[in-house]
């Protein structure tokens, strides 16, 4: 052990220490870089999501406002009463009989020059596959076949229960897909990567097939076609966008009218019907529950199984009320203590200075607030009423006392309506409890305790839902008892998120497959992807600001009493308003 060696050791040690320190420094710096990228990504996401939900909030707010007007408008004459009921009744024509429905498509001629796919019923697997191929080649299905297909689809749906039961003993695997939102590329990709539907390959599509994307019609056609071809192996759940009121705002209605200029209205009317008959949920092996939104602390699967799902025309808030009951409720209001926290509708003067619905309601209060029975048809039921006598009475005007909730009535009870709305609109949250979903305006936020309670009550293992876009296309929460699956990749912008689907094998263990329909984004680095999405978000935000520039200027001016042209950081507050 001479001094030479110890010097060498010392030197070596110093070098090692330097390398260690250098590496640590680089790592530290790199982690900070990544964190800042992540921050940018989150902010971008927030921008997109806020704009998406703000749009939805606006929609609900507007709906609330008009409902309120209708509620508080007292018809002073027979004419006005008729007018009111006609306003709510979407059916502008006398009730269609089944016979007339039959002729809806048969009378439509298909010209010889039509080069698109032609369907004949009963559909064969080849037809469905040919349909996918035709759409991939950007062909459009003729209105006659669209209506024919919709007619056959409804016939099939009517036989289905509210909660479809699927078993893995008959098939090897089950594939569950989430929101598609009119993005046909994603659907085609799923079929390409996972295989076409077949008796051995069960598919469940968990709602939100339409709106926002540009090929909602084509997606529906493909999904319905496969459902008719493989009725036992192809399942659809209703989503909150399978709703004509939502479609009015989010693009589906427009898409149909653009693509089918002559028969668009008829198609939309038929679709309204079809949507109402979509099942509400799917249950796999009695262990895995699949539904679009989520659950609440009052979700009752037995009730959901039994109710008449087609009575729920739309899950947009519907607050029609009866004449007699209005007075009764007003009396109730007077005697009620202020302990119950009732939000004042946004368009009325608020007691405190708050914006959208006051603090989140306890669930009980929300039930009480919404607890007015209805006799004014909301969203148009009469045409579908099983009881023609009842339908005639409803068309005549208000005052069908037994209309609401009674068996054979065309309206769901408030409870039934809420049960359905909850499962179509709710979102999971990290904290315990159950509170109103003020961001979306419908449904609730449910905590891990609510999930646990429900799973235990019905002896379930897993809840699969969709409804929320996730960067990776999927996300587990509530100790992996809830799985969100979202199948529309690049939903907010190119590169914003992956899509995913989940496969359940015989042991029911979930196996996730991710994808991104736009190949270009795969090769980009995280940094480039984030930059691009960021640009899109900022661009969208700029457009929104520009659209509201006069309002913004007005707000800013309010804060700038001195007309200096300068506004402090208070402007953020102004922007929020």
């Amino acid at each position, binding site marked *: 052990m001479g001094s030479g060696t110890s010097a060498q050791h010392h030197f070596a040690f110093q070098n090692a220490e330097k390398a260690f320190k250098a*590496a640590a420094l680089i790592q530290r710096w790199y982690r900070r870089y990544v964190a800042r990228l992540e921050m940018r990504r989150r902010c971008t996401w927030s921008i997109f999501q806020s704009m998406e939900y703000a749009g939805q909030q606006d929609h609900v707010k507007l709906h609330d406002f008009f409902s309120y007007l209708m509620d508080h408008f007292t018809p002073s004459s027979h004419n006005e009463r008729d007018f009111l009921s006609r306003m709510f009744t979407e059916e502008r024509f006398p009730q269609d009989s089944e016979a007339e429905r039959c002729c809806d498509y048969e009378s439509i001629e298909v010209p010889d020059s039509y080069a698109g796919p032609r369907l004949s019923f009963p559909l064969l697997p080849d037809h469905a596959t040919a349909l996918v191929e035709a759409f991939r080649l950007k062909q459009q299905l003729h209105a006659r076949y669209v209506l024919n297909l919709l007619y056959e689809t409804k016939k099939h749906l009517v036989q289905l229960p509210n909660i479809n039961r699927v078993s893995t003993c008959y098939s090897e695997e089950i594939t569950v897909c989430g929101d598609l939102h009119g993005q046909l590329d994603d659907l085609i990709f799923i079929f390409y990567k996972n295989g076409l539907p077949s008796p051995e390959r069960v598919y469940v599509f968990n709602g939100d097939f339409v709106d926002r994307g540009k090929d909602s019609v084509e997606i529906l056609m493909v999904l319905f076609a496969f459902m008719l071809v493989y009725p036992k192996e192809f399942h659809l759940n209703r989503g909150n966008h399978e709703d004509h009121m939502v479609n009015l705002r989010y693009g589906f209605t427009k898409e149909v009218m653009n693509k089918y200029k002559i028969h668009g209205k008829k198609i939309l009317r038929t679709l309204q019907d079809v949507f109402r008959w979509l099942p509400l949920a799917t249950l796999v092996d009695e262990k895995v529950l699949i539904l679009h939104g989520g659950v609440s602390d009052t979700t009752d699967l037995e009730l959901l199984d039994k109710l008449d799902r087609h009575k729920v025309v739309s899950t947009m808030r519907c607050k029609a009320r009866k004449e007699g009951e209005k007075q009764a409720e007003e009396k109730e209001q007077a005697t009620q203590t202020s302990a119950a926290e009732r939000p004042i509708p946004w368009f009325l003067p608020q007691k405190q200075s708050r914006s959208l619905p006051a603090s989140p309601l306890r669930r009980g209060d929300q039930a009480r607030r919404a607890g007015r029975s209805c006799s004014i048809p909301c969203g148009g039921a009469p045409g579908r009423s099983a009881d023609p006598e009842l339908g005639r009475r409803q068309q005549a005007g208000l005052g069908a006392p037994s209309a609401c909730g009674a068996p054979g009535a065309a309206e769901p009870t408030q409870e039934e309506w809420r049960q359905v709305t909850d499962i179509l609109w709710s979102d999971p949250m990290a904290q315990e409890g159950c509170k109103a979903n003020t961001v979306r305006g419908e449904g609730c936020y449910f905590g891990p305790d609510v999930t646990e309670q429900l799973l235990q009550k019905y002896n379930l293992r897993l809840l699969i839902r969709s409804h929320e876009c996730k960067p990776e296309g999927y996300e587990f929460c509530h100790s992996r008892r809830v799985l969100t699956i979202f199948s529309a990749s690049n939903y907010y912008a190119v590169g914003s998120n992956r899509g995913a689907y989940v496969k359940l094998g015989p042991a029911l263990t979930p196996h996730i497959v991710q994808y991104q329909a736009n190949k270009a984004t795969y090769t980009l680095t995280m940094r480039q992807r984030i930059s691009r999405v960021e640009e899109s978000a900022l661009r969208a935000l700029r457009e929104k600001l520009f659209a509201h520039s006069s309002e913004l200027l007005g707000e800013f001016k309010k804060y700038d009493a001195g007309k200096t042209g300068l506004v402090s950081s208070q402007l953020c507050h102004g922007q929020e308003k």
Partner: protein
Amino acid sequence: MADDRDREEAVVAEFHKKIKEAFEVFDHDSNNTVDVREIGTIMRSLGCCPSEGELHDLIAEVEDEEPTGYIRFEKFLPVMTEILLERRYRPVPEDVLLHAFEVLDSAKRGFLTKEELIKYMTEEGEPFSQEEMEEMLSAAIDPDSNSIHYRDYITMMVIDEH
């Protein structure tokens, strides 16, 4: 002096605002808590550059006595404000970073091979996870030479920041 105090108050107020904004990005349920795993991201987005070890110490400081997996804003704010006031965990300037790369590049070639980078990043210092390593490689690697020209890499990253 009253002026100094005003100025300091203004600085603190500014910090509070920044910290709150950063915190809110990760406060998904709007209940003034964030997942403890996001604290690092929040801190770093505020300009700090702590090591993993320093981060762990900080988390211990802001956690509740009974750790819940969530950090509350009330606890986070004063600690973070102090850090910003004291200018703790400042990031190193570019040239120091460059020097660090040069230390690893003992032959002074101007680049590191992919294998060398992997070895250093996953075996030395506070090792990267596989994910971190892959992510860094995807941006840093020059596919033709399969090496990292660190001078260019640093320049590219720094431009990105601004």
